[in-house]
């Protein structure tokens, strides 16, 4: 079974400060990990993914995430937050065993950037 935990329902960060949105996962093998962002009344937008290779992955809008296998974490980060980063963020995991294509999502973290 695969699962994701996002321990924080809400994260508030001052504009210009670094931000971190936390995610931990559980899968039976090596995970495929994803971050998506959801703006009001819009669908999920893909931000970045970890499949293999370098543990630090870079994505859209200046976001990056670090895969940590020993801590089973995949935290989303950005060096300097913008007000426009305010949105709902979802971490997702996929167990890459053959035939398994489904993503399992966390419950989401609402990020609010305070001007």
């Amino acid at each position, binding site marked *: 079974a695969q699962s994701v935990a996002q321990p924080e329902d809400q994260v508030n960060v001052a504009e210009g400060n670094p931000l971190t949105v936390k995610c931990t996962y559980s899968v039976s093998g090596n995970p495929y990990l*994803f971050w*998506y962002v959801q703006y009001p009344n819009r669908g999920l937008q*893909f931000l970045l*993914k970890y499949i293999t290779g370098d543990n630090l992955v870079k994505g859209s809008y200046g976001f990056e995430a670090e895969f940590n296998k020993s801590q089973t974490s995949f935290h989303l980060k950005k060096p300097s937050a913008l007000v426009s980063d305010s949105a709902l963020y*979802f971490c997702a995991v996929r167990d890459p065993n053959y035939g398994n294509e489904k*993503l*399992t999502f*966390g419950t989401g973290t609402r990020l609010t950037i305070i001007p």
Partner: protein
Amino acid sequence: GAGVSQTPSNKVTEKGKYVELRCDPISGHTALYWYRQSLGQGPEFLIYFQGTGAADDSGLPNDRFFAVRPEGSVSTLKIQRTERGDSAVYLCASSFRGAPSSYEQYFGPGTRLTVT
């Protein structure tokens, strides 16, 4: 290019009625997925198509839910005898299988279903 589109954007129906939700994937994407997102939750997997066939329907909650993709492109999610608990946003996603960059799924805007 055009993204995943879903129609209708909103659907209100009475308990016990039948509804169909449509998804148009990104052109050329061979894989199509349906998810359901309840208020305050993350999306939950329902079913996955590779081409015309349902490769994994393990997320369908019961036999009132059914989905088809007869020509390997457009898909329809069908819900019979709707219940108030079916109220949610139904999300469709597609991806292109067969390349290293194909792992991510691209989502449509969703159909908000309200059962009264």
